[in-house]
C-alpha cells in the first residue's frame, strides 16, 4: 500500500447561498473534465438515476457525472473533494439494497470505465475497469477455457465495480466463493482523491487485509479504478439436475442431505410454487413442473470422472426426501434453459405487479425448513404472497413479494411482513444480507444485529478511508450509532 498524507478537511469555495453540490460553477468545472454531455443536471435527465434495483424508493441526485477514463475519474473525485461535496458511486444501478440511491448529492456513474485492461490466461487472472459488465468478462475469457465465477442473477447488466462494492454472490458461489474470494488486487481512488493500491496481484499480501475490508464496503471507502480478479477454469463436465417436490420442506430436507454428504454442488437453488408459476407464465418459461410445490436446481461440475457417481448420489438424496422425480439436463441447451428460468425469476415476478421487493436474509442451513414455514405464516398473516427463490446450499434466502407500491395499505403490509421475516432470520442465528448489501434498505436492522461497540468500530474503519464521510453518505451503518461521529472533528481517530 502506498498512500500520500491524509486529506485536509474539505476547503469548499465560498458558498453562494446554494448548497455547493447545486452550484452551477461545480457543474461547469465537472463538465470541463468530462464534457458537457456527461454532466446531467435537469430533473428530466436525472430521472433514470432516481432509483436502483430497490423498488419503492426514489431519490434525485443534485447532478450526475460520468467520467470516461481513469484520469477523468480521478480529476472528478479530486474536484468533489475540493468542493467538499458528497457523492454516490454507481455502476449499472442493479443493486437491490438502495446502495446507489443519491439523495440530493452528486451521483458518480462509473459504467463508462468498461475496458478489460488485460487477461493473463496462464495465471488465470484479468485486470478490468470497474464498469466492465460481469458476463462480458466471462464471455471474453471463455476462449481461454476460463470464466469469472461469481454470477449474480443480474450478471448480464451488473458491473464488476458494483460487484466489488457489494461483495456480490450468485448461484455458483456455493462452490466457487463470492466476489471477495476472487479479487486479488485493486487500485482504489479514495474519496480524498488519493490513489492507493490494495492487495498484491503477483504474490501474497502482508499486513492488514485492507483489500478484504474494501470489498463489500458499498462505495463508502472509495471507488476501484481497476480490479485484478482471479478466473476459474471451465469445468471439464457439468451435470444439471432438476428435482421436483410436493412440499417445500421435502426440498429443504434434500438440501440438508446433499450438503451433509460432502458433495459440493456448484449450485443448489430452490424455487417454490409461486416462483415456478411466475417463471412458467413468462417468456423465460423453462419447462419447470407447474404443479410442484418446490424444485431444486442442482448443478455438479468438475472433472468428468466420478461426476456421474455424484449425480447418482444426489438423485438418491432427492428421492429419499420424497422427490416426485429427478430430471438431468440432456445437453447444454436444456441446461441453459433451466438456468434462464432461475436467473430471470425476478424479472418474471416483476410482470405480476408494479413493484417487487427482493430480500436477502441468510440462516444456518439446518434452520431452512423451519424458517420457510415461518415465512409462509408471516405472509399469510399479512395477506401478502411471498415467493421464494434462493441459494439453498448457502442458506441464503430471497423471499420476494410482488406488490403495488402506490397502494399504501398493501405497501405497509409488505413492509411489515418483510420486517418480521428479517426478525425471524436474525432470531434463527442468521443475518440480514448475504449478497445484496445493507445500503439504505437494511439500515434499520443493523442495530438488531450488531452491538453499539461493533457499529462504532465499523464507523471508525470507514473514517480511516473517508475521514470526511463524503462517499455514499448515510449508507451501511446508521449514523446515530457512530459515537465518534458525534465528537468534534479534531477528536476523530482518523
Amino acid at each position, binding site marked *: *500500500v502506498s498512500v*500520500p498524507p491524509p486529506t485536509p478537511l474539505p476547503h469548499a469555495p465560498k458558498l453562494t447561498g446554494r448548497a455547493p453540490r447545486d452550484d452551477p460553477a461545480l457543474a461547469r468545472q465537472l463538465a470541463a473534465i468530462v464534457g458537457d454531455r456527461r454532466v446531467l443536471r435537469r430533473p428530466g435527465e436525472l430521472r433514470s438515476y432516481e432509483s436502483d434495483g430497490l423498488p419503492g424508493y426514489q431519490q434525485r441526485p443534485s447532478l450526475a457525472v460520468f467520467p470516461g477514463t481513469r484520469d477523468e475519474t480521478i480529476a472528478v473525485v479530486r474536484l468533489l473533494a475540493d468542493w467538499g461535496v458528497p457523492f454516490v458511486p454507481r455502476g449499472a444501478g442493479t443493486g437491490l439494497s438502495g446502495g446507489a440511491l443519491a439523495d440530493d448529492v452528486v451521483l458518480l456513474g462509473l459504467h463508462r470505465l468498461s475496458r478489460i485492461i488485460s487477461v*493473463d490466461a*496462464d*495465471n488465470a487472472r484479468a485486470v478490468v475497469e470497474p464498469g466492465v459488465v460481469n458476463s462480458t468478462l466471462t464471455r471474453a475469457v471463455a476462449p481461454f477455457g476460463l470464466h469469472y465465477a461469481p454470477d449474480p442473477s443480474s450478471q448480464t447488466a451488473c458491473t464488476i465495480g458494483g460487484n466489488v462494492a457489494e*461483495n456480490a*454472490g450468485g448461484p455458483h458461489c456455493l462452490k466457487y*466463493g463470492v466476489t*471477495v*474470494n476472487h479479487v486479488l488486487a485493486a487500485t482504489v481512488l479514495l474519496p480524498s482523491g488519493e490513489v492507493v493500491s490494495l492487495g498484491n496481484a*503477483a*504474490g*501474497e*499480501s*502482508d*499486513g*492488514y*487485509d485492507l483489500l*478484504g*475490508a474494501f470489498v*463489500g*464496503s458499498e462505495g463508502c471507502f472509495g471507488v476501484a479504478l481497476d480490479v485484478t480478479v482471479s478466473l476459474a477454469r471451465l469445468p*471439464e*463436465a457439468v451435470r444439471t439436475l432438476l428435482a421436483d417436490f410436493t412440499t417445500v420442506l421435502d426440498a429443504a430436507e434434500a438440501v440438508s442431505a446433499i*450438503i*451433509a*454428504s*460432502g458433495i*459440493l454442488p456448484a449450485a443448489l437453488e430452490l424455487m417454490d410454487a409461486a416462483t415456478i408459476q411466475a417463471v412458467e407464465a413468462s417468456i423465460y418459461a423453462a419447462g419447470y413442473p407447474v404443479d410442484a410445490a418446490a424444485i431444486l436446481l442442482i448443478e455438479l461440475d*468438475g*472433472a468428468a*470422472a*466420478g461426476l456421474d*457417481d455424484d449425480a447418482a448420489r444426489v438423485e438418491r438424496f432427492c428421492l429419499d426426501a420424497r422427490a416426485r422425480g429427478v430430471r438431468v439436463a440432456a445437453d447444454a441447451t436444456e441446461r441453459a434453459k433451466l438456468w434462464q428460468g432461475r436467473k430471470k425469476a425476478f424479472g418474471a415476478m416483476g410482470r405480476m405487479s408494479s413493484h417487487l421487493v427482493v430480500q436477502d436474509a*441468510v*440462516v*444456518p*442451513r*439446518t434452520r431452512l425448513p423451519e424458517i420457510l414455514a415461518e415465512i409462509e405464516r408471516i405472509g399469510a398473516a399479512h395477506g401478502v404472497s411471498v415467493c421464494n427463490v434462493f*441459494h439453498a446450499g*448457502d*442458506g*441464503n434466502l430471497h423471499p420476494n413479494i410482488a406488490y403495488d407500491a402506490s397502494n399504501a395499505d398493501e405497501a405497509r403490509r409488505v413492509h411489515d411482513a418483510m420486517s418480521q421475516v428479517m426478525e425471524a432470520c436474525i432470531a434463527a*442465528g*442468521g*443475518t440480514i444480507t448475504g449478497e*445484496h448489501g*445493507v445500503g439504505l434498505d437494511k439500515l434499520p436492522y*443493523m442495530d438488531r*444485529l*450488531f*452491538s453499539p*461497540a461493533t457499529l462504532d*468500530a*465499523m464507523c471508525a*474503519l*470507514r473514517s*480511516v478511508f473517508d475521514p470526511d464521510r463524503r462517499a455514499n453518505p448515510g449508507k451501511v*451503518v446508521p449514523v446515530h450509532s457512530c459515537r465518534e461521529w458525534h465528537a468534534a472533528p479534531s477528536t476523530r*481517530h482518523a
Partner: protein
Amino acid sequence: MTTMLGCDSTAAVAERIREARATGTTLRLVGAGGWLDAGRPCPAEHRVELRPLAGVTEYEAGDLTLTARAGTTLSEIERATAPEGQWLTLDPFGSADGTIGATVATASHGPLSSSYGTPRDHLLGCESVSGTGDVIRSGGRVVKNVAGFDLPRLMCGAWGTLGVLTEITVRLRARPEVDRTLVVALRDESAGACADAWRWLRASPFTPLAAELLSASIARRLGLGERAVLALRLGGNEALVRSAERTVAELGDVRTVAGSLWDDLRRSEPSGSVVIRLGALPADIGSLWAAAGTLAERAGGFAHSTLGRGVVRCVVPIAELEEDNGRLWGIIGQLQAAGSRIFERLPSSLWSGIPSPASDPISRGVRRAFDPDHLLNPGILGESA
C-alpha cells in the same frame, strides 16, 4: 519482568486490556506459545495467556460451521469434527497444537490452502476485544454474509494488533470419501521440472486438495527418496481419485504413501529456523523454486512450494549459519521474488532492516482506530506509533 495474565473469558480479556490502558502497560498475546518466534520481536511488558480461553462453543454439523473460543487448538477442533466426517481445512506449518486464534491472527496456512484457501476464506465471524477494551462481534455463523463492513477479514492476519481474538466461527468441509496421498519423483530440482509440474496441475481437470513440491532435502528427511517430489493429496469419490491417479502417472514414477506425510511435513521445521515465503505469478514459479531450493540446500535447509498458489517457502536452520549474519543476509538477499517476500521467522537482529507492511497511512489509521495506544503486540508488524 514479564507478568503472565491468564484469561479464561472475554470479560477477563476486556478487564486486562482496560487495566493495561489505565496503566499504559503493553501486552503480548500468547496462544499455545508455539509460534512466539514468528514475526518481529515484541517487547511488551505483560503476557496475556489465551490458551485457557478454550472450547468449542457451538457446533451444528448440518450447518458445516463451528464456533470456538480463540484458545482452542486445531487438534481439539479436529477431535470435535472428525466423528461427523467433517474437518477444518486449515493446516498451518508448526503443529495441530497451535490455537485457532493464532492461526487466524497470523493468517497461517499450509498445503491445503492450494484448494481450500487461507484463513480469510474460512473465517465467518469473530469476537475480539479492541485496544480500548471494547468487545466487537462481527460477521456471523452463516456461510454468506455482507452485513456491515468486513471486520473479521481485517482481524485475520493483523497479528492481534487490532484486537484480541476471543471467539471465532469458521466454515468446515465434509471430509472427502477418499483421501489419498501420492508422491511423484521429479527428474531434478530445476526450474524446468517445477514448471512442468505446474503446467500439469493447471491442465488437469481435477483440483487436488494439496499439491506441494518438496525439495530433495526434505523429501529425504521424510523418507520419500533422494529426489525432489511433487506430493499430491487427492480427494473425492473413488472414480475421480482413480482417474486422477492415472493422469498423475504422466508426470513420472508415482507411489502412494501414508497421509501422515502431511503432518510430518507440518512438523518438519527445526525450531530456530529462518523461514522466508516468496510469491510470484504461478506461471513464473519455476525460477523462484530453483533459486530457493539451491540456497536452502546449500544452507542446510529445504524448500517447498504450494504450486498452484505461486508460493515457495524456504526454511533454513540458523545454527547452520554459525550466527554469521553477513552470510545469512547474503542468502536472504538472493531470495528475491517478483511478487512478494514475506519473512515468517528471522533472528531478531535482522528484523530492523525489513520494512513494515503496516506503515502506510491507511494501516496506521486502522491501528489508531482499533488500538489507539498501541497496547496490543506492539512492534510485531514493525509499525511505529
